[in-house]
């Protein structure tokens, strides 16, 4: 018999962090995700087989032979394997973190994979087709999620350097203003050497981190409302400056980047966090009013803004021209009806730029494609998944130990939820169409990586056994002494 070595000596280096703790709920939910995605892949494969038979022989196949071939089974197997590996990594790390986030993100990503398999493979993607490239990004995104969720055990580096973060964010924005490449009339893409990406996606994470730091430190002052402006009660003037700056940045993005979506997203998240921190409706109302006024001025002054709004108000007047995408998306929703046409059963020309299809379906209109193929029922389920993400985030916020973590968690989940709402509403012609992505579903690396980062941070914040935040440094503060 050999004596077991003492635990302290056994656990060295990385092994010190391995403390397996089962996560049965997560595993159970992941099994449901796996089943759903497998059935979806079967449905897609059968529909595509029937469609091929109709094209070849003019009629549907008489027998069921050859229909039971799941489409893209190899890609799906890799994806589900990645989810399982993520689960195992979380089990081994043994932190008491949330068990719903990973399966929810996994299902959204799986829907994205099925959709990309179904679209024409030559739409985009450098690594052998749309679906393969998307699979790579999804696996990297889940990797980022798990890495952040396991490794981040301390938030000092987030809260202490909030002005550094703000500087990084503004630098990123200015870099895009100057060096950005124009795609479809929007200056969204930043390419430095071989690396290109959409900085807006990173910017939203940085914004939430900065706002969490700023608002948690100055919350009591913002609540004070000592300045009066007619009937309005405002916070002390110096503390209004960041808000005005935020408003200017949002409008600047519209003017220089021509990116309505990012402006809407950043400003909406800013107002929501202001409300979360202060519980004052007046700020939200004032912010909205300022945004509407600014928007009105931009509408009068800039042509690209006017085009967007006009398309939104009446796309059918330019149905073959500027309003083409929006009209096709509306037709897609109409074809889908309540139950949808089934995966793979939409118009054969969805995407691909052919007549009857939606251009940019893989980035801007995945919601319309899901609406056509899964119907109202399916689209409601997708919205339900985003709702679950928001609920988890707000729940994590409600049980956080201090203001910074509470505002950070609320902001991180709201940024994902608001983004999903803006692009879904844009697809449905409820708000002007904007070029932002549907989180975890749209094709594109920046978006999936940034959102993976966000959910990873949420996961880290949800840890109930996390070490207490350090005591705040003595501040030279804040005019409230008497």
């Amino acid at each position, binding site marked *: 018999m050999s004596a077991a070595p003492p635990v302290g000596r056994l656990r060295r280096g990385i092994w010190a962090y391995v403390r397996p703790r089962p996560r049965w709920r997560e595993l*159970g*939910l992941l099994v*449901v995700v796996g089943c*759903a995605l497998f*059935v*979806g892949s*079967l*449905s897609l494969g*059968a*529909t595509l087989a*029937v469609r091929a038979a109709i094209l070849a022989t003019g009629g*549907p196949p*008489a027998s*069921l032979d050859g*229909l039971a071939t799941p489409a893209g089974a190899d890609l799906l197997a890799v994806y589900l394997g990645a989810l399982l590996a993520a689960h195992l990594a979380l089990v081994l790390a043994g932190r008491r973190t949330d*068990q*719903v986030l990973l*399966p929810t993100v996994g*299902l959204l990503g799986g829907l994205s994979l099925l959709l990309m398999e179904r679209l024409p493979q030559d739409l985009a993607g450098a690594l052998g087709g749309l679906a393969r490239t998307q699979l790579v990004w999804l696996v990297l995104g889940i990797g980022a999620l798990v890495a952040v969720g396991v490794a981040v055990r301390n938030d000092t580096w987030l809260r202490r350097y909030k002005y550094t973060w703000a500087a990084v964010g503004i630098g990123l924005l200015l870099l895009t203003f100057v060096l950005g490449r124009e795609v479809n009339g929007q200056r969204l893409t930043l390419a430095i050497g071989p690396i290109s990406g959409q900085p807006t996606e990173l910017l939203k994470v940085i914004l939430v981190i900065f706002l969490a730091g700023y608002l*948690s430190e100055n*919350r*009591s002052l913002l*609540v004070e409302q000592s300045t009066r402006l007619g009937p309005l009660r405002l916070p002390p003037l110096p503390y209004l400056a960041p808000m005005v700056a935020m408003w200017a940045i949002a409008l600047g993005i519209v003017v220089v980047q021509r990116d309505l979506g990012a402006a809407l997203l950043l400003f909406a998240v800013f107002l929501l966090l202001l409300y979360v921190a*202060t*519980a004052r409706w007046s700020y939200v109302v004032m912010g909205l009013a300022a945004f509407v006024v600014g928007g009105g001025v931009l509408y009068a002054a800039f042509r690209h803004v006017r085009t967007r709004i006009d398309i939104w108000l009446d796309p059918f007047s330019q149905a073959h021209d500027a309003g083409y995408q929006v009209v096709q998306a509306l037709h897609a929703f109409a074809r889908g009806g309540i*139950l*949808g046409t*089934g*995966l793979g*059963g939409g118009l054969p020309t969805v995407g691909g730029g052919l007549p009857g299809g939606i251009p940019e379906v893989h980035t801007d209109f995945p919601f319309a494609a899901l609406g056509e193929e*899964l*119907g109202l*029922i*399916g689209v409601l*389920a997708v919205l*339900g*998944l985003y709702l*679950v993400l928001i*609920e*988890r985030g707000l*729940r994590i916020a*409600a*049980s*956080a*130990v*201090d*203001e*910074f973590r*509470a505002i950070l968690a609320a902001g991180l989940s709201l940024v994902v939820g608001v983004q999903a709402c803006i692009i879904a509403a844009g697809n449905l012609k409820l708000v002007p169409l904007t070029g932002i992505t549907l989180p975890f579903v749209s094709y594109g690396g920046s978006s999936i990586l940034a959102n993976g980062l966000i959910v990873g941070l949420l996961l880290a914040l949800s840890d109930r056994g996390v070490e*207490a*935040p350090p*005591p*705040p*440094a*003595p*501040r030279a503060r*804040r005019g*409230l*002494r*008497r």
Partner: protein
Amino acid sequence: MDPVVIALWILRLAFLALLYLFLAAVVRVLLRDLRAAAREPATVLGRLVVVASPGDPPVGTALPADAVTTIGRDVNNTIVLDDPFVTGEHAVLTFRGRAWFVEDLQSTNGTFLNGEPVDGVAAAAFGDELTIGGVRLRLERPGR
């Protein structure tokens, strides 16, 4: 009806049903979590966690903080700190409207907020640290 069409319909509906099965499973987890949270007493406004202490309230104790929480050595205080450097009625922590305030009740050794002496009244926030005698207390949200 054509068996092929029926098979396609079954697969489509099964996929949609599984999506909702997932949502139902998640909602079950969420409801259980919310019920567990609702069972815990939620009337506390905040809590004071003992970070350092020479003796009586041991380190790690979480003391509930009400709208008015008096702190001192006297037994009539809400939070009694049995430390010779603490005055009988040492300080009071209040929650007014939406913010916390610490008031030093002219104690012998003073009250410190994040290392700075409290002169009269000072605004406090969650995450701040109070030093009273040899005891350090951190104000935390009541969550979880």
